[in-house]
């Protein structure tokens, strides 16, 4: 294990709930993970699995009926769960940034790109207006924009989707944050543009040594850019580990099912897809046991009664599934019989 000084983000037993008229929606339940400097973590899950909410809680931007109801978040020396709005405002942008899925709605249509970029720099730095403008032009060049001086004077509607996402990245990186949260950064873009944006993010990451959390539902997107992957289901991290461990040695049945349900492009034969049957659980009444139990084809009695504990399968590869417990139990039993 690395020493503590490498740890940038430490989330322990995080719970986030939305208090709606219909009852408490447990969007995130007991999420625990750490991130190091310069690391890229992918969070994969379906809509409603809590992948966005868990990341938003780091920035204090959970929408209204939502609240952090338990756990602790330590980010770069801040105790995030205790921070006030004023402290958040200082931290957002300078130490932690976010880019959203839809670059069309995240930019203000009535201000020029240059205006929006310099505004951000003037808020977080002591630079003069002139210096901020120079820095903004430099940033646009950094994200691969041609003729940045001309682009500064243009409005968001004059940009294509991919270009807008580049502006968002430039804005997010303006103050060289320690952590960038990318919430489905490529979902709204075409495949050819997707590849460009992902490569750009990874290249810039190396330049300024930041960490990235990529939130996505597409396992293909995270497979070559992420160091580690966390798979979320119904508000819980069901499995977390190094990218190769998740893809080649998945331990949770949901991860297994997810990998099986994607068509393989490099296969010649036509094989029928193996879907995960059923539909996601209702977060208003979570089952007592494993949330995936009702869709799992290897479901046992205990799965319906109790939530499986997190087990470390190999170094840094943690999963919550009763099958792992069963396997280990059988191993030890088998050993005894042999003796």
């Amino acid at each position, binding site marked *: 294990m690395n020493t503590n000084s490498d740890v940038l983000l430490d989330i322990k037993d995080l719970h986030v709930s939305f208090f709606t008229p219909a009852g408490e929606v447990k969007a995130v339940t007991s999420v625990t993970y750490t991130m190091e400097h310069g690391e890229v973590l992918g969070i994969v899950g379906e809509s409603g699995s809590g992948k966005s909410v868990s990341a938003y809680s780091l920035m204090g931007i959970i929408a209204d009926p939502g609240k952090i109801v338990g756990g602790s978040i330590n980010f770069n020396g801040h105790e995030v769960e205790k921070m006030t709005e004023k402290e958040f405002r200082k931290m957002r942008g300078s130490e932690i940034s976010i880019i959203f899925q839809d670059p069309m709605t995240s930019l203000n249509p009535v201000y020029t790109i240059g205006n929006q970029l310099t505004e951000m720099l003037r808020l977080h730095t002591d630079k003069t207006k002139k210096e901020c403008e120079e820095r903004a032009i430099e940033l646009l060049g950094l994200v691969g924009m041609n003729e940045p001086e001309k682009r500064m004077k243009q409005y968001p509607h004059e940009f294509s989707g991919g270009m807008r996402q580049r502006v968002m990245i430039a804005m997010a990186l303006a103050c060289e944050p320690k952590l960038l949260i990318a919430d489905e950064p490529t979902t709204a873009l075409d495949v050819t543009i997707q590849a460009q944006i992902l490569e750009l993010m990874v290249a810039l990451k190396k330049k300024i040594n930041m960490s990235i959390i990529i939130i996505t539902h597409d396992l293909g997107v995270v497979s070559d850019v992420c160091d580690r992957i966390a798979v979320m289901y119904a508000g819980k991290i069901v499995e977390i580990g190094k990218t190769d461990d998740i893809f080649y040695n998945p331990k949770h049945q949901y991860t297994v099912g997810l990998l099986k349900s994607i*068509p393989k492009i490099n296969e010649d034969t036509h094989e029928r897809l193996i*879907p995960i049957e059923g539909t996601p659980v209702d977060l208003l009444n979570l089952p007592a046991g494993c949330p995936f139990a009702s869709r799992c084809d290897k479901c046992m009695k205990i799965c319906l009664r109790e939530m499986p504990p997190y087990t470390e399968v190999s170094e840094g590869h943690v999963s919550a599934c009763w099958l792992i417990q069963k396997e280990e139990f059988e191993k030890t039993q088998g050993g005894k019989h042999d003796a």
Partner: protein
Amino acid sequence: MPEKLLEVQHLQQYFPVKGKMFQKTFVQAVDDVNFHIDEGETFGLVGESGCGKTTTGRTILRLYEPTDGKIIYRGEDITHVNFAPYRKKMQIVFQDPYASLDARMTVGDIVGEPIDIHKLAGSKKERHDMIMALLERVGLNSEHANRYPHEFSGGQRQRIGIARALAVNPEFIVCDEPISALDVSIQAQVVNMFEDLQQELGLTYLFIAHDLAIVKHISNRIGVMYLGKLVELAESAELYKNPLHPYTRSLLSAIPIPDPKVSREKKRIVLEGDVPSPVNPPSGCRFRTRCPYATEQCALEVPEFKDYGGGHYAACHRIGQV
């Protein structure tokens, strides 16, 4: 030889946009597109947003009146005839299952509406039985008929949309990005259902999508579109193994592969720049502004859509040279 079910010849779809005074300008959404679909096959249409794939699908169903060209169905020219009898044979499933179902109608009425319009049921009882059979066919059950669309998840709504399309016993269905709004674990369920229905009912699909992995999985043949033009057409395995057009190559190389070892080694062909505006497309080959191999000839002449053997068509001047 299977029979040709549908053929489009030189299909053209221009939409007028406001230009300068006394000057008409057009969005050239679909331009000179030729292909045919055999009976019982799935024909995939892929391309980036704005390439005209959806417009092609909708024009075939005469949801837009084509500007020029011919649509031939079972040997009959249906470009300008009264389309009502053909609506019974040709149906569509839309992309967004949240927007394509009337929120104020019950599921039973949504599925029953085409039955009413085409007067397919003789009595109330018959109509009811038909709706129940349709719901069961798509994996829903009879108690769902009295509920409203908001009570269903995305995957279930898409099933309702499919049941509605099946209500008139069609032969041909345009599937316009039917799974891109669904979660990954649900996508596979819906894709399998499309395949099962095709087997059971002998349906023919035009499957429009931007997810190439899914299109390859479901299609027999695939057409690739770029800026209103069909640039390549081939059997799906052939297209993936031996892409001829530079655009198809870059498109294939950009697919994110859910296998870290493969995707780390893969070289992406990253295209420079953005798709040009379809109002004023580049002269000659429309791809030339982003093509790494473009020459002077590409700016002057429109490349011909030619057969390079075994039904593998492509439109590029430089095939064989690069």
